[in-house]
């Protein structure tokens, strides 16, 4: 056990209101999730509660030599809380942009959030098309004009295995970028 390296990764889960961010973190976290839900005064037809500050959860991924601990910080979705995006993105090594496949009207919000996050850090992202299928993936890629280097996965935020798949995809990209940075600086 003492030979195992523990590495901590801070990742952010963002996306529009009701995309499934809080659900996503809750599905995989090994610790009781920190949530900051309150009642909604608008958008009640979609859901009656919303994240006002952050969600926080943790999940570990292990192989023979390493234990990687993923610290997951979930953001509020509404742009009026964009100051929390600045705060929560501090030190992030990558982020998940969650998009609700069943509500295309939220996709312009998703594009705006992505533009903001790309300013906040030059880190890899993975797009999770929540409640989506392969055909939704193509639609989201087109609507958000995603670069083909950005991985886009259909997922189900309620399903632990599906969430893990998204996180592992992001993790691989984060590690690749870190290795490239290390090589570049030598």
């Amino acid at each position, binding site marked *: 056990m003492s030979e195992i390296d523990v590495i901590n990764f801070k990742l952010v889960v963002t996306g529009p209101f009701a995309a499934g961010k809080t659900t996503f973190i809750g599905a995989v976290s090994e610790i009781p999730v920190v949530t900051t839900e309150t009642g909604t005064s608008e958008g009640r037809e979609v859901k009656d509660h919303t994240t006002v500050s952050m969600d926080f959860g943790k999940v570990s991924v292990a192989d023979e030599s390493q234990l990687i601990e993923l610290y997951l910080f979930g953001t509020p979705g509404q742009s009026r809380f964009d100051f*929390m995006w600045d705060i929560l993105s501090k030190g992030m090594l990558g982020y998940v942009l969650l998009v609700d496949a069943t509500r295309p009207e939220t996709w312009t919000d998703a594009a705006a959030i992505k533009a903001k996050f790309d300013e906040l850090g030059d880190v890899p992202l993975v797009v999770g098309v929540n409640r989506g299928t392969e055909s939704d993936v193509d639609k989201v890629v087109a609507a958000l004009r995603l670069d083909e280097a950005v991985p886009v996965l259909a997922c189900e935020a309620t399903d632990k295995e599906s969430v893990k798949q998204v996180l592992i995809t992001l993790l691989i990209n984060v590690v690749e970028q870190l290795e490239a940075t290390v090589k570049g600086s030598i």
Partner: protein
Amino acid sequence: MENESFYDFGGPEPEPARPSIGRLSTVVANPTATGVEAVIEECAALSRSLDGILALIVATSDGMLIHSTWSEVEGMRAAAISAAALGLGQRIASDFGQGEFHDSVVSTGDRVIGIYAVGDRHVLGVVAAAEDVTLGLLHLSARRTAQAIGRVLSDS
């Protein structure tokens, strides 16, 4: 109790949590082991000097735990919450306060929780029993501790 705290405040003095720091975190440099030891000592000194301290936490401004008097899981959650409180406090200070964030206080009747800036890269959280501390004394001591921790962390 309807809204029971996740956090453990009772029982014997817990073991200091294993320092768990975001090594690859891009914003905040990680303290050395001796730096962490010095932080633990400053926290212990604050606890000794003031009655009514129930818990202490030191975290990086991006939410990674450096030291807490809670268990590791409790400490990790508290680190994320404290960093968010710091960030929000800094935002309130710059938007409404024309200056730098020093501290904020959450009062619950039974408890007083102080959030203190430690330089601009770390945060100190102090939970105290309301009946045992006065706010003035808590601020005086905790700010001094925050400064001492800030010196330790900027040197290590």
